[in-house]
């Protein structure tokens, strides 16, 4: 994705690039907000133009989450920082079982960043939010000097409402429950890596970036008693499962053969010496539920477009060391630990 596929906006072509006046609070900033941000993201609430958005929310517990997005490159196969900023926060809100309703967006722009690219990002955000049925209700823009940012950083905050009777939490896992994964792992991380400046390689791998609240809604409607939901983003499946294991003070036993993996992702990982268990996802979720509910939940997930390849990947065990272990494809067993630092391609 290089340029927006609609008629080029006059604002972006007229002003070309971000400069310090766009963050200065004067007319230039007002024009940018009106002609670029509000033009695409606008809705009744955003258009009020207050310092704070005034929201009417349905009864129930509120779920709130915030996420800063700093992805490089900004545009990648399957998405861009704009759609990612919407999906990421929607998913964090949805992982409590909530229906996401509102988003806020704060942009930190680097001086010199082409407005045409900014507009493409904003349009992508608007499309993602519209598709998800979520409104962007308030926002902020700041400009930093050239060299002090990486083009665009976007922070989004989401607000949603948890339906009655749904109680999902990272410390609700207990022995005997089943662990379900909604699809293949590693697609997002490898798609990003494949476009990094110094590591470009030919691949058709696309980021899995997607909003999962529709899938979650179907799941909690079918099985309101889901214990844990979480999206395995940074640190991948391994980090997320370890988080849950520590919070719930349980162990886990995974089956490597049950973990869905795209063949191209697998090949790229082999080549680079990376382990797909540690690679980021942006459109997948992990669900832990009672064993008796697992098959029913699996069927519901597979019926949804974002859960077609869902699979029961393991079982919650009792373990005071909170170890996540895995029976390997090869027949042995190994510990699946947290990732230390960053995964680096191997040398030898």
């Amino acid at each position, binding site marked *: 994705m290089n340029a927006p596929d609609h008629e080029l906006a006059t604002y972006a072509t007229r002003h070309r690039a971000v400069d310090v006046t766009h963050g200065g609070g004067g007319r230039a900033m007002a024009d940018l907000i009106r002609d670029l941000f509000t033009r695409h993201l606008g809705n009744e609430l955003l258009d009020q133009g207050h310092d704070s958005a005034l929201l009417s929310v349905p009864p129930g517990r509120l779920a709130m989450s915030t996420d800063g997005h700093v992805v490089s490159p900004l545009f990648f196969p399957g998405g861009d920082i704009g759609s990612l900023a919407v999906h990421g926060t929607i998913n964090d809100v949805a992982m409590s079982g909530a229906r996401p309703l509102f988003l806020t967006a704060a942009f930190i722009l680097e001086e010199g960043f082409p407005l045409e690219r900014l507009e493409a990002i904003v349009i992508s955000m608007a499309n993602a939010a519209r598709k998800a049925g979520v409104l962007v209700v308030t926002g902020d823009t700041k400009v930093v000097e050239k060299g002090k940012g990486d083009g665009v950083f976007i922070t989004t905050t989401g607000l949603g409402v948890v339906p009655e009777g749904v109680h999902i939490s990272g410390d609700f896992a207990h022995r005997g429950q089943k662990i379900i994964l909604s699809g293949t792992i590693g697609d997002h991380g490898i798609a990003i890596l494949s476009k990094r400046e*110094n*590591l470009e390689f030919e691949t058709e791998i696309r980021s899995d970036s997607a909003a999962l609240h529709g899938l979650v809604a179907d799941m909690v409607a079918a099985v309101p008693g889901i214990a844990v939901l979480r999206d395995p983003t940074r640190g991948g499946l391994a980090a997320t499962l370890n988080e849950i294991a520590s919070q719930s003070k349980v*162990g886990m*036993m995974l089956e490597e053969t049950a973990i869905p993996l795209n*063949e191209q992702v*697998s*090949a790229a990982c*082999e080549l680079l*010496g990376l*382990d797909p268990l540690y690679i980021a996802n942006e459109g997948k979720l992990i669900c832990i539920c009672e064993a008796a509910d697992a098959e029913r939940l699996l069927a519901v997930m597979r019926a949804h477009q974002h859960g077609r390849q869902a699979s029961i990947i393991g079982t919650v*065990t*009792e*373990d005071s*060391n909170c*170890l996540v*272990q895995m029976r*390997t*494809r*090869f*027949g*042995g*067993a*190994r*510990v699946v*630990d947290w990732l*230390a*630092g*960053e995964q*680096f*391609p*191997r*040398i*030898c």
Partner: protein
Amino acid sequence: MKYISEFRAPDLAEKLGQAICAEANPERTYHLMEFCGGHTHAIFRYGVQDLMPANVHFVHGPGCPVCVLPVRRLDDAVELAERHGVILCTYGDMMRVPGTKQRSLIRAKADGADIRMIYSTQDVLKIARDNPGRQVVFFAIGFETTTPPTAVAIRQAKAEGLSNFSVFCNHVLTPAAIQHILASPEVHEFGTVKIDGFLGPSHVSSIIGYAPYEGFAESFGKPVVISGFEPLDVMQASLMLIRQINEGRHVVENQYTRVVTRLGNLKAQNLVADVFEPRPEFEWRGLGTVANSALRIRDRYAAFDAELRFDITQKHSREVKSCECPAILRGVKKPTDCKLFGTVCTPDTPMGSCMVSSEGACAAYWTYGRYREQAANTGEAAA
């Protein structure tokens, strides 16, 4: 992925495991040193040990390029980046290795040094072309596998007249290291380290061939089987070693026939010989000073030698006290014998190099099986 999954087939693994159980003599033990970190990694990642009889032990060797680099050379690299203001380019694994006083390249980078993580020597050349006003140094490490790309880069730089490019050369040689281990008092005289045979390097041997191991297999009476890095490779090579040991033979055999030949890649060897020559001696972490065990840049390419281009100071480099990396690299100790292992030294806060690289023995113990041995020791079954 067919070309990989067939080397990880569970049914074949089971059959091989059974064959090993049938042929391994229960009256004795087998201590097999896997030279390479790649082997160590495969053994842990796939749980190969689970499929072997209890009397077959893997002894982890020093074949992890990051692990064996002595602290002083790392301190030198930090100095190049900090004091000489160069753009220092390095493979990712090197970034987190702690130098003297825990100073790593990643710390130096955070403090403002220009250190770039690269994936290929071609990236370094590009950085040099793009920054004609800056000195660009490639922090070259690795065994024979990584040497040819460095040779190519130096030749290319010379052909292009890329005068701001140079190499801080730390390339080391595998056969010299194995020979040193075999000749060490722990193995040779005292027998504190039992080694009955070697799983020989795979990628390294694709370059140098397997002929270079023939001399010491004969003179030290230890069999060597060149083994690929896939788990089935490791198991099959182990079976071949056990057979040799049982039959009292000690020759070099090649399990990794799909890649390795007796004489190796002659084109790569010629490239390396054109650019590099042996150093009379080089310090290894763990092994100490080993004669003819590393390479330096030949005079005809001296213009690209960072050690000549920059005035690197003599320094008093020190490893962390009580870090057992040196003993672990010699196979004298296991990671769990180290007081620091899993307490102050973890992959998040590595005290020694073996905890940094995925090919390091400590990192492999920690990542793939840290509690298993503890559980076994205390009589608990791992869940």
